[in-house]
């Protein structure tokens, strides 16, 4: 079954680029014989390019030329051009790109209304073409940031489009949320406007915060530089900056940070691509982790951290990996699930880990976690036999937890600060199709969502009166 990523905007495409690179490496490591197999087909087509780029797809047999199943969308050319000139240039062709030159000016309305309208037909056409090549399309991934204009505006426009054109295909969104100190002043507007779309049209959202990614990268650095674990940095390590030095990071190491998000997607889809004793497909993630349609925001954590960098660290104890998954250091957003309420939790393990390891650790960790009353044993588990490249095992945890509420409340507060003063509003309202009601509806949608989480926190999900079980006349 195929998963189709859409990288929208600068952030989305930078993450996307890392994702394709890692995906190729992962499959190359596993697929020694160069045969185009079921696993590869979830992300790549095999094209016969002997007679040019427009050759037919080859469904079996040796790998000829792998082309990524993807759409790259950006309203500026910089990032996409870089990709097309870099080592991944043969993985994409021009039919998968939608670009413009002037950008969205960090304006959601420009991305959503103006470019949405302008490029709708082109996007639909390219989407259909890409979908045609897919044997069985199971899931769309949108990779974008929330704070800007293209990723946020056009990205959520695409989300809407996907629901219209392919209503049965699941829509997963990986969204990078802006921090409080974001450079873009209007990022709260963009984010809240985008949130409404995510509330209404996404099946699952994986929110990501740059602060978390930054901290993770720093931790990896500490691990390398501490020398305690006897680790060595491999060549072509993701952690080395462009200057080749792994010692200090002068600026925000976006490459390394993007790598983490790319790894998230890789791990999320690993059990759908590779075999294991308990498979976990993407539609299962959506089924088990979304008890009520709008509560579909999942906190992700990845462990061990060193699998996110090309670092050779001797394996630590397996149980430590499970503990780490529930430590804030490993989460991709700043939140506190341990002190909030779990609605559901999924553990996707890769590598030589068996069901008894899973059970032992769930039993061990359960007492310190608070689960909603109707889901006391709410664990979804998956065992994938294939570990990440160069490592023996890894774990991805996805939690549907009310701890996302503070993040959303903060976002709403930042939005209100600007909105009350009507700051920068005219930039949005002057865009065709954009009205004040878009703003009020968006913040209302966010408020409702926050309220749903609050209700759960207050009642722990328990109904006021438990309906007693059906009685049978004897």
């Amino acid at each position: 079954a195929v998963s189709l990523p859409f990288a929208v905007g600068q952030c989305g495409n930078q993450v996307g680029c890392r994702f394709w690179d890692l995906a190729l490496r992962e499959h190359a490591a596993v697929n020694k014989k160069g045969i185009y197999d079921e696993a590869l087909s979830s992300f790549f087509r095999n094209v016969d390019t002997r007679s040019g780029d427009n050759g037919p797809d080859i469904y079996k047999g040796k790998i000829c030329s792998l082309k990524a199943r993807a759409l790259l969308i950006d309203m500026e050319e910089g990032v996409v051009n870089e990709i097309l000139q870099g080592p991944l240039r043969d993985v994409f062709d021009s039919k998968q790109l939608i670009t413009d030159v002037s950008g969205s000016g960090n304006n959601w309305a420009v991305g959503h209304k103006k470019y949405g309208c302008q490029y709708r037909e082109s996007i639909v056409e390219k989407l259909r073409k890409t979908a045609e090549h897919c044997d069985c399309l199971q899931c769309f991934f949108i990779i974008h940031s929330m704070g800007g204009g293209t990723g946020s505006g056009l990205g959520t426009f695409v989300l809407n489009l996907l629901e219209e054109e392919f209503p049965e295909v699941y829509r997963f969104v990986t969204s990078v949320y802006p921090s409080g100190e974001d450079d873009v002043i209007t990022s709260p507007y963009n984010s809240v406007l985008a949130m409404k779309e995510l509330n209404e049209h996404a099946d699952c959202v994986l929110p990501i915060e740059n602060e978390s990614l930054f901290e993770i990268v720093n931790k990896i650095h500490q691990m390398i530089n501490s020398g305690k674990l006897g680790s060595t940095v491999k060549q072509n390590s993701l952690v080395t900056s462009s200057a080749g030095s792994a010692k200090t990071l002068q600026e925000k190491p976006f490459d390394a940070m993007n790598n983490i998000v790319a790894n998230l997607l890789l791990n999320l889809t690993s059990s759908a691509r590779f075999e294991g004793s308990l498979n976990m497909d993407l539609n299962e993630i959506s089924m088990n982790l979304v008890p009520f349609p709008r509560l579909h925001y999942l906190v992700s954590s990845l462990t061990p951290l060193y699998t996110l960098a090309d670092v050779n660290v001797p394996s630590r104890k397996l149980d430590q990996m499970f503990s780490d998954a529930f430590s804030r250091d490993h989460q991709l957003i700043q939140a506190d699930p341990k002190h909030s309420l779990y609605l559901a939790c999924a553990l996707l393990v890769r590598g030589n880990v068996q069901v008894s390891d899973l059970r032992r650790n769930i039993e061990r960790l359960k007492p310190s976690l608070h689960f909603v009353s109707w889901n006391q044993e709410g664990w979804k588990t998956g065992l994938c036999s294939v570990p990440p490249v160069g490592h023996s095992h890894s774990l991805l945890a996805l939690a549907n937890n009310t701890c996302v509420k503070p993040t959303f409340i903060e976002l709403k507060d930042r939005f209100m600060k600007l909105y009350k003063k009507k700051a920068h509003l005219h930039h949005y309202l002057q865009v065709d199709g954009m009205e004040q009601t878009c703003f009020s509806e968006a913040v209302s949608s966010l408020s409702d969502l926050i309220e749903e989480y609050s209700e759960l926190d207050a009642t722990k999900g328990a109904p006021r009166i438990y309906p007693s079980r059906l009685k049978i006349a004897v």
Partner: protein
Amino acid sequence: MSIVTVQLGQCGNQIGHEVFSALCSDIRGTHGLCSRKENESYRDACRERFFCEQESAVPVARAVLVDMEPKVISQTLSTAASSGHWKYSSHSHFCQKQGSGNNWANGYSVHGPRHKEAIMDLVRKEAEKCERLGGFFTIMSVAGGTGSGLGAFVTQCLRDAFPTSFLLNHVVWPYGTGEVIVQNYNSVLTLSHLYHSADALLVHQNDVVHKICAQLMNIKQISFRDVNRVIAHQLGSVFQPAHTAGGGSGYSRNPLGDLMESLVPHPEFRMLGLRNIPQMPESSLPYSTFSWPGLLKHLRQMLIANAHMEEGIDWQVRPPQPGSSIPSTNKPLHFNTSIANLVILRGKDVHGVDLGRFQDPSLYTSWLNPQDAFSAWQTPRAFNKYEKSAALVSNSQFLLQPLDNIVGKAWNMFASKAYLHQYTKFGIQEEDFLDCFTTLEQVISSYTNL
């Protein structure tokens, strides 16, 4: 008579593979401990039951493999073939690409009708290869989407297409924690539907088998493969050929029919539990000896006290004393009342083993004669390298507590309406859930009031 096995979903296919593997390895083994004639007879009976040998170098399992995604079937087929000793037919599987998403409604209402023809076609072809069809054996988990939902649908189709054939569903109940979050919903939906179509449900619980792996088999890092192998061993101990009491000199020619006749006297009571003794790592076998009285004493107490294995049995539990007129409501709480039991003995010195204590009327409900409530099969041919082994298939209160737990948890979740939108989107409404709850509460009530 031949049995056609239908393997459904990841669990069904993984277990099915282990079952055929175990059966094949058993008949190839040289530890029969019986006469050559007996051994050959056993082997031939097993082959007729489970394998087909037309135009093939190795026996071909009489099986249909069904899954909604390709990886597991692909693995299953290749692993079997690489054994060199048996294989699946290359034309007996059906799979799709997108899976069922752990959604019972998706398996039952979408995949079921959509693929009914193709699947039943494969089943018919397999049934036609049998000179005499003895019935169907389906294997599935109740927790996921395919085995459970599609499995329930296929079971119904089997019942409709083969109304006079025996239909036994082997169902696997998931770990209490940590497999699928909506497992209790899926279980309730599956079990209630199967109850209306199958002749009987033979149940294995992952938690129980896991304990056997940990405590009896001494496995440190238990994998699903280990769990499945124990299950396969237990199933093999029931389905390998055996002589029934009135069955003449040959091996039983109608194993499923015999099973149903012995154990399912009343349609309200269809749930069968399985116990096996002894269970130990293969490496310990050469160093162990057992006596039939010892084994049977343990097995009987496992029945009475509802113990899952020969360790940790509560010996305090006793059946109510005969002769004292204690009304049924006063029965000791932990005592497991039986409707019917079947004991299968395999190996050395089976003849003349005293099974009298299994016919003790106090073990049973009052509405059957103890002679009718208890059956015994046997064979001097040892099974799977165990010099002596005994299996107990029981229609009793074994599964009452676990079933009650599942229904309770599902009801709790249903009351909060969590996850219901995932089911209604595929056509399973709240009323459908209520019907299923009603069916199972009825079953629970019936078993409680034995």
